[in-house]
């Protein structure tokens, strides 16, 4: 091992490569730099937030190789070769993701700090369980803390997004009724 902490002879850090939101990226940073900080500082993807910095609050949640992770707990070297999705990768060609639409229309976002992490945890949940039960929603989001909404609006947003993604049009009047009733 080199005595200079792993730098190349010219004093720079070796490149670490991975994919973010479908785009190949390469960064030359210390390998222990947190993925969270690389996303925000090096790639200027500031949608991902830092809350607690210890894996308790979920606001830095991103998806990595199809799994939900806390980006504050990942040394960027461990993301080498990974496919990463951040909140910036949810919308497609300017079209909001159904979860984003649902959070917008159901009051799922207030101050916004937890929202990117909530969206990513919800996206992970729907990837694994397209029609989650309330218990599954609560478990899927249990690692994401929100201090504004009281969570109910967030759970309702996820339920609405899951229903909205149904191709069965018979589901839609039911959803409308629920919304009006409230």
């Amino acid at each position, binding site marked *: 091992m080199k005595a200079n902490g792993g730098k190349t002879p010219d004093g720079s850090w070796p490149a670490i490569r991975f994919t973010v939101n479908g785009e190949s990226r390469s960064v030359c940073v210390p390998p222990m730099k947190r993925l969270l900080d690389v996303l925000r500082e090096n790639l200027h993807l500031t949608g991902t937030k830092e809350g607690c910095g210890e894996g*308790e609050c979920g606001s830095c949640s991103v998806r990595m190789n199809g799994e*939900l992770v806390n980006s504050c707990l990942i*040394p960027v070297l461990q993301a080498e070769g990974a496919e990463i999705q951040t909140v910036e990768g949810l919308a497609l060609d300017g079209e909001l993701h159904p979860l984003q639409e649902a959070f917008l229309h159901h009051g799922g976002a207030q101050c916004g700090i937890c929202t990117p992490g909530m969206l990513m945890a919800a996206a992970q949940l729907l990837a694994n369980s397209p029609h989650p039960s309330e218990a599954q929603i609560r478990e899927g989001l249990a*690692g994401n803390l929100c201090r504004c909404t009281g969570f109910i609006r967030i759970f309702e947003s996820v339920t609405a997004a899951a229903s909205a993604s149904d191709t069965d049009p018979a589901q839609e009047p039911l959803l409308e009724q629920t919304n009006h009733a409230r």
Partner: protein
Amino acid sequence: MRGNAEMHELVAPGSLGAVLDLLAAQPGAWTPIAGGTELMVAFSAGRLEAHKLVSLWGIPDLRAIEVTPAGVTIGAATTFFDLRKHAAVNAALPLLAKAASWIGSVANQSRATLGGNLVNGSPAADSSPVLLTYDAEIETISLRGRRKVPYSEFHTGYKRNVLAADELLYAIHLPRRFARHRQYLRKVGTRRAMAISKVALAATALVERGVIAEIRLGAASLAPYPVRLKQTEAALLGQAVTRETVLAARRALLAEAQPIDDIRSTAEYRRRVAVNLLEEFLLELRREGSQP
């Protein structure tokens, strides 16, 4: 004080052999890091003491679940999410699947590993009581070879274990002979998700001819490290599950447990809850017997 990434070296040799070479070349100099759910918390807070870290993430030999008729072998870097979604683990080792589902959050479970939980050695570790009641065996590896140690002898003190400086925890072996046992696991904490146990108890027991023929009790947060409650087990072994037996077991546990006051709870609360958990299990055992 924030952690400074430039102050820590991290390498990812990519293969088990290369990691073992590094550990053997400079014993004690390198700290293995798997999913990072413990070490990266310390790093973020600026209190990570290790300056040279070697990554175990992405090494296939360490992240594997092998199922045979005799047992289940779990690679040390298998994540809790891997465990909870694995059909054979759910069927053969239901308490382990349950404990895995209780650890932290989904995001924590995607990274936290079974081996990391054991090597970290928290007295409150979620997987430990289960491994104790399932009679787990730990397999270590180094360039000098492999060896097996009963998990009940793995921890040697608070955050201390039998691993030598050049050794890695390689795999956890679990026998599949608890299908007829009554099995129990309960964790008591402040909330279901994210909370570290105030106290937890796991148990497996077999009742034959009206008496307890086998019993294993594994506890978290009742000692400086996760322990089998051997004296309490002795008070139960060979006994019919009567009111007197339950009272004697409660007394034995009160004598055996050494909980402490800390940020999460008090020794007194932990003692009371522990005996109540034990009683809950024994009443289940009396009501339902073993052989579900």
